[in-house]
């Protein structure tokens, strides 16, 4: 449940960097995504075609504050996005460093506090830091989105132990791994760990065949979620024979 909305598909798909609007449209469908991320920019080429895709996709839009480096910029962008997209959902990004695109935790909490008080339903792009997560929850966030790896790096889950701790610490709170996912296996792993969703963009948009990759990610996320629900077997250090010893012939 993300702010009272139950989703069948737990794959949230970014819409940037596709080879063409037609490929983007087909990728959204192939992924089975119900939530797509969008941004606000000065109108460029292809703006009209993009708005058509948003309408036709039937997806819920999750506008972002990508590129904002201060709380003030992010808050203004969020207010503009709410009016334009007609949704209170906002993927809150406040970037602290240009090379890593790591969130600025202090500005993030400041912006989250302002936006939650104004009735926004905030999806903060954060790190796996537990105290930061608690401050965001205190600010009013009912979803947290820890990074897997730096945005666009495709490195997967860089800090598994930290993500596991986060999953355990925020029991019952929807957590979405956002950023750094490069392969369907990594998305499946996040879902197996008990995360409630995965948000990705570049891994699909930059694939040789984005539509095929979107389909692969859709299946991986569904498989990982089903596996988590079914309960993974405990790991052991030593072997345990699966074939029964009882009834074995004496042949020696």
């Amino acid at each position, binding site marked *: 449940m993300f702010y009272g909305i139950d989703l069948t598909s737990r794959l949230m798909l970014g819409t940037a960097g596709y080879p063409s609007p037609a490929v983007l449209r087909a990728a959204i469908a192939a992924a089975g995504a119900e939530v797509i991320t969008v941004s*606000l920019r000065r109108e460029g080429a292809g703006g009209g075609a993009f708005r058509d895709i948003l309408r036709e996709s039937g997806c819920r839009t999750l506008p*972002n504050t*990508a590129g904002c480096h201060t709380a003030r910029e992010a808050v203004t962008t969020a207010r503009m996005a709410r009016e*334009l997209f007609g949704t209170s959902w906002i993927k809150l990004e406040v970037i602290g460093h240009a090379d890593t695109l790591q969130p600025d935790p202090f500005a993030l909490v400041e912006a989250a506090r302002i936006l939650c008080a104004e009735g926004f339903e905030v999806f903060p792009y954060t790190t796996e830091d537990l105290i930061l997560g608690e401050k965001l929850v205190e600010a009013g966030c009912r979803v947290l989105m820890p990074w897997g790896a730096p945005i666009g790096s495709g490195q997967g889950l860089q800090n598994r132990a930290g993500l596991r701790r986060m999953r355990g610490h925020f029991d019952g709170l929807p957590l979405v791994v956002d950023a750094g996912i490069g392969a369907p296996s990594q998305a499946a792993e996040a879902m197996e760990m008990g995360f409630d969703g995965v948000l990705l963009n570049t891994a699909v948009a930059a694939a040789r065949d984005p539509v095929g990759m979107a389909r692969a990610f859709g299946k991986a996320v569904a498989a990982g979620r089903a596996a988590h629900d079914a309960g993974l077997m405990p790991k052991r250090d030593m072997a345990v024979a699966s074939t029964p010893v009882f009834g074995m012939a004496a042949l020696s």
Partner: protein
Amino acid sequence: MRIDLNGAPVETAAATLAALIEERGLDAAAVATAMNGAFVPRPLRDRTALTEGARIEVLSPMQGG
């Protein structure tokens, strides 16, 4: 009056933000606006007077991750 529209200097006869949007042929319902870094909601555009050197942003839905 000279203002800054989406990062470019512009000479305009418009007195308000709403008039500027009309003057530029922009679709008022398909954009969100800000002046000097602060959001200007749609209903307030025709009450928002432009001032010399004002920094206006007119933004549209675009692709994003």
